[in-house]
């Protein structure tokens, strides 16, 4: 298990290096002068030149890359062209908001997907199944921003139960944090839930047809135990993979949802960085998203190996 984890970690580092080259290259290829964009057209040439030099934009590209990656390794992603704050502090500031939203959204998604997907797999071609596939279709088709606005209209506007937008830190006021979180979490969770529902359905259906499920029933186990320990337990293994991808996607910021709910997350940060050609922030954010994906995937693989003993066994041989 340890050897397996170390090997997967080494793979992740290699991928990350590749991603950093790509991130750097893309930034070089994007048209537009970031210093000009930051200073505006009226800036005097001396300030302009000084800023360019400070940002190292006049160095040869390979030198820029080595400098950048060297700094990045020590946690220095540079300084925002726009605000002058360090990229690291800008990103760290946004992490709690994004983490809250992503975790809450994946919980919403799983709360929708597992019961609905299981029910529909247990009753194929019955009304429950139709309802599930219809609502999963609807969940996928409804645009995030529309769902968000509708939820705000109903729960914040008409009923007045929940705040319409904004974020309150968990450390500040847990109850208010939760109240602000509910609507964005539902909005972001519904589409993931819709994707996962279909996945759970097919995974459970496949699991149901396995020979070992028949063995479990032939033992005289209660239907509920067979479902939990032989159907769902085994369906969980592939679900972890897809769930992990969804979580990574939510962690790298759901731009539209964050926008609708004025949620100060990473998606919004990246979006603003694109708008203002704030290269250092954008590079930092993209690199962070890559790290998130790799990390979640690593965790998924480790969870996978725990859930299915055959996997470590194969790699150990």
């Amino acid at each position, binding site marked *: 298990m340890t050897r397996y984890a170390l090997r997967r970690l080494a793979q992740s580092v290699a991928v990350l290096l590749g991603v950093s080259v790509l991130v750097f290259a893309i930034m070089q290829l994007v048209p537009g002068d970031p210093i000009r964009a930051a200073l505006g057209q009226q800036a005097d040439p001396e300030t302009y030149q000084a800023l360019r030099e400070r940002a190292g934009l006049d160095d040869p590209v390979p030198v820029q890359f080595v400098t950048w990656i060297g700094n990045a390794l020590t946690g220095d992603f540079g300084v925002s062209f726009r605000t002058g704050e360090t990229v690291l502090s800008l990103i760290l500031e946004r992490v709690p908001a994004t983490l809250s939203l992503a975790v809450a959204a994946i919980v919403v998604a799983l709360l929708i997907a597992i019961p609905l997907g299981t029910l529909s797999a247990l009753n194929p071609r019955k009304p429950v199944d139709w309802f599930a596939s219809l609502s999963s279709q609807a969940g996928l088709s409804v645009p995030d921003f529309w769902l968000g606005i509708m939820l705000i209209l109903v729960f914040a506007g008409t009923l007045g139960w929940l705040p319409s937008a904004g974020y309150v830190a968990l450390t500040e006021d847990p109850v208010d944090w939760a109240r602000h979180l509910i609507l964005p979490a539902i909005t972001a969770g519904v589409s993931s839930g819709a994707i996962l529902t279909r996945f759970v359905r097919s995974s459970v259906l496949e699991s149901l047809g396995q020979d070992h499920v028949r*063995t479990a029933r032939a033992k005289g186990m209660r239907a509920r135990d067979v479902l939990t320990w032989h159907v769902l337990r085994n369906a969980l293994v592939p679900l972890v993979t897809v769930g992990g991808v969804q979580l990574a996607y939510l962690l790298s910021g759901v731009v539209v949802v964050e926008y609708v709910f004025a949620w100060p997350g990473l998606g919004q940060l990246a979006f603003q960085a694109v708008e203002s050609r704030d290269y250092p922030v954008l590079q930092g954010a993209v690199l962070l998203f890559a790290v998130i994906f790799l990390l979640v995937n690593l965790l998924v693989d480790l969870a996978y190996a725990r859930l299915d003993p055959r996997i470590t066994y194969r790699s150990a041989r």
Partner: protein
Amino acid sequence: MTAPVLAVDDLHVAFRTRRGPARVVNGLSFELHPGRTLAVVGESGSGKSVSSLALLGLLPGTAQVRGSAVFDGAELIGRSEEELRRVRGAGIGMVFQDPMTSLNPVLTVERQIGEALRAHEKVSDDGVRSRAAELLTEVGIPDAAARLRAYPHQLSGGMRQRVMIAIALAGNPKVLIADEATTALDVTVQAQILELIERLQDEHGMGVVWITHDLGVVAGIADHVVVMYAGRCVEEGAVDELFGRPAHPYTRGLLGALPVVDDPRPARERAELVTMPGLPPDPADLPPGCAFHPRCPVRADARCATEPPPLAPVPGSAAEHRAATFYVARGGHA
């Protein structure tokens, strides 16, 4: 003779399909006595496995089961799920074909045997462990305590099938149904598993239903044989009777397709293996009359294509040797 522990009478199983009902079992009857071995023989798709699953209510919801199956004095067909659950494992144990897929790959051996123990009585964790270790020892697995922690993929095929048998024995059943239990195994391992089940049968006095397409296995272990074709019994009898004087053309075809290993004649003088042309009929589109008649090499009677022949005693044989063919009824014997 003692009362049968399992008596199946006129069992019918049909599956709803888009093309109409697929009639997979069509009036199967047999009796199993305690301590005896009944072999159910037939090609793939002849309804052998479906019949056994039907007894325990293990078929999917699209199956319609009719007829009667009396186990230990109580009717099984039409019983509630909970009543059937109590029979599964505790009254009738089952061993399936492929021990790799029939065991759950992500649960330990201890857990899977433990489930069978806990399904019918309350057992403590320690109780489960010691009972599971006993069962493994009983089915001939050395170093049982270590094997309990193993996952199925860490065991050999023969070992896995022994675990399956341990699971089937956990509820102390009166009847063991072995559904192609040796088909997926190497020949040497097959022999070991056959011996194991025979030994366990002696020790526990279980009745064993052995479902197989392997006539070699049947000859070695069965007391009584039921030959199935298209979901019905076409011939049954004591194993010596049936192998010695097969009456139904289908049984003869099966036996003709079996190589004789200890034939003393040189290879070129031996009788050629006879293969049976054609395939078993589609259960959604059974032919009228005798289901075997389109493939039958004899077809000696005009009724073959119009009415199904009844299962009747074979003239000149012991009373329990019966065959469903008009050919025999006319006294013809090749």
